[in-house]
């Protein structure tokens, strides 16, 4: 043990374990989290070379292999508690993401919640056995948060009882979905529904995109990887262009809105239903903000206790950099912020679970406030943490610039949260709308 760190721990006036229990929500939660971590970290199947030393193709391959093992081991261990699944995945992934992420986080939940029973009976077994590997294609090359602007069309043909899915322009090409480039063989595509000559807005359709035997793209489907990004090297974020692809009427997700064989459209009971999913995902992101900042602070503060630089009084040994007030002023407010955001993350998760109960009883009254709060907090925390990680990196001097510090990986993976799942400025304006209306 480095003597400086040893002395820091000797001199502390608090017992970290007590705080760990508070952060986990109880001693039993801490014990169980550590048990799951050990399950993964002691598993040879998850050992691999440092991803920083691999090419992009090799990183994708390692991630694919790990994903497949991760999801099958989750099933083998019978881990079913959503929080424990989340722990298991985050330990397996470390600071990275996986090509199957969208299949499990979006495709399967959408099939479960937006399909008729007979549709579910057909697709869920295929999806859970990974014969169908899905993704969720919403964002287009020139259309992001403002989903009403999406251009992809789904036109109903009553003569064949099929939908014709089409990407009418270059700007309508689906762009970004994780797993779309090389992994998925189906996609839930969000498209403008046209039937009987009228547009009924956005609806979701299950579209086969690769042959389930050969994995070759199907005729009329142009699909591929969008190329290297700032981070997410392990994920094949992809593009998808559809040239008048025909799918059966039954491939439209019809639990709420429906199209009858003759083309008649039936409206959904309430359009608030998609709010719930957005609130859930943005609540998760608030928690992710706390984690990214807590990790960054751990690295920067421990290293600031180990690192000795220049001198405070001439002739004396170089002090620990953590003794410099300027260094403290970089890191301690961020440390406080990491705690603050951890507690906000807990609050959002608890509130969401409570309100979900209300929603299931048909009480939507608190959803607008929670939706406004989730949008605002997603933006507020991700912007703050995005800047905070960079401060932590610079607080480590030149070594912070090396990939070995872990900070570049944390940064390039986390910074995407400022633009995905709703661009932050738009999120802030959504909250403002609620505030002014209130």
């Amino acid at each position, binding site marked *: 043990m480095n003597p400086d*760190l040893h002395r820091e721990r000797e001199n502390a006036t608090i017992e970290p374990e007590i705080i760990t229990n508070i952060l986990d929500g109880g001693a039993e939660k801490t014990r169980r989290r550590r048990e799951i971590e050990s399950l993964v970290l002691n598993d040879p199947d998850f050992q691999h070379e440092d991803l920083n030393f691999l090419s992009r193709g090799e990183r994708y391959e390692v991630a694919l292999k790990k994903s497949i093992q991760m999801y099958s081991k989750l099933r083998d261990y019978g881990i079913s508690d959503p929080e424990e699944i989340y722990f298991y995945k985050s330990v397996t992934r470390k600071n990275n993401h996986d090509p199957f992420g969208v299949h499990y986080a979006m495709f399967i939940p959408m099939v479960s919640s937006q399909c008729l029973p007979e549709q579910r009976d057909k697709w869920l077994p295929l999806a859970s056995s990974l014969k169908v590997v899905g993704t969720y294609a919403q964002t287009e090359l020139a259309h992001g948060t403002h989903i009403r602007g999406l251009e992809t069309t789904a036109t109903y043909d009553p003569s064949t009882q099929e939908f014709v899915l089409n990407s009418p322009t270059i700007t309508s090409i689906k762009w970004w979905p994780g797993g779309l480039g090389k992994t998925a063989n189906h996609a839930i595509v969000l498209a403008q529904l046209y039937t009987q000559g009228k547009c009924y807005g956005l609806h979701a359709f299950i579209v086969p995109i690769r042959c389930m035997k050969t994995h070759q793209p199907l005729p009329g489907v142009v699909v591929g990887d969008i190329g290297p990004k700032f981070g997410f090297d392990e994920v094949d974020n992809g593009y998808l262009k559809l040239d008048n692809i025909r799918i059966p009427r039954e491939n439209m997700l019809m639990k709420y809105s429906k199209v009858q064989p003759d083309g008649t459209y039936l409206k959904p009971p309430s359009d608030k239903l998609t709010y719930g999913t957005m609130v859930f995902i943005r609540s998760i992101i608030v928690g992710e903000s706390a984690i990214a900042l807590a990790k960054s*602070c751990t690295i920067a503060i421990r290293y600031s206790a180990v690192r000795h630089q220049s001198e405070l009084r001439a002739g004396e040994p170089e002090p620990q950099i953590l003794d410099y007030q300027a260094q403290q002023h970089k890191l301690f407010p961020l440390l*406080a912020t990491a*705690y603050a955001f951890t507690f906000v993350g807990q609050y959002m998760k608890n509130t969401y679970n409570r309100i979900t109960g209300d929603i299931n009883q048909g009480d939507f009254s608190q959803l607008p406030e929670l939706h406004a709060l989730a949008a605002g907090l997603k933006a507020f925390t991700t912007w703050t943490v995005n800047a905070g990680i960079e401060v932590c990196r610079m607080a480590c001097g030149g070594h912070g610039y090396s990939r070995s510090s872990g900070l570049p990986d944390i940064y390039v993976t986390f910074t995407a949260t400022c633009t995905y799942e709703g661009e932050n400025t738009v999120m802030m304006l959504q909250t403002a709308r*609620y*505030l002014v209306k209130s």
Partner: protein
Amino acid sequence: YRQVRDGKQLTGIVSYLNESHQHLQPQPTGSRPAGSRPTVISINDLQSLVEAYKLRAANLVETAAKSLQTELQHSKSQEDAWNNSSLELIRASDAHCHYVVVKLFAAKLSEIGNTAVYSVLSTLALLYALHGVASNSGDFLQAGLLTVPQLAQITQRIKALMAEIRPNAVALVDAFDYRDEMLNSTLGRYDGNVYENMFEWAKSSPLNRTEVHESYYKHMKPLQSRL
């Protein structure tokens, strides 16, 4: 804001707009001049800071709403008025969220039983709140919640709080309980053996698989033999 202005009572996290709406109304003449609202910040009192964040948020919400009204009075459309007030609207949302975070942090403290932990986390909460005030002092000054001399006091108070935190800094990050494999960082290793491991890590870089990289034979050697 509009519902409160129209006399409706709000519930939930925006309910602060109910009372702060009165608080921010111009006082009738003859009573305190509007500019001299009472300063509510007490540097050592977290609850007073929560109150100040609340009033700052309410003030910025009102500023945004008034901007919208002014734009509309210039017979702008709703959409144009909204777009031309974006800066105020985003500031209002930011302030609202900041208030929520400070409020939840303060509320969390009341659940903590261990006195040593309570004391350290209270110090962190105070630092978070004061640092936020210092970083957004313009808002607090404009809302009359802060005086210029208080700004200097806040800076001094932040320094004192940092010195208080210093002995427990490492313990506070240890408490996040990230295993080395989760951090994946030579700088942040639990045992602090940074430099030895940085060296090991560097030596295993693919570029070092051979003592002489193949590109030397392809490019450098031919170049040097020509010179």
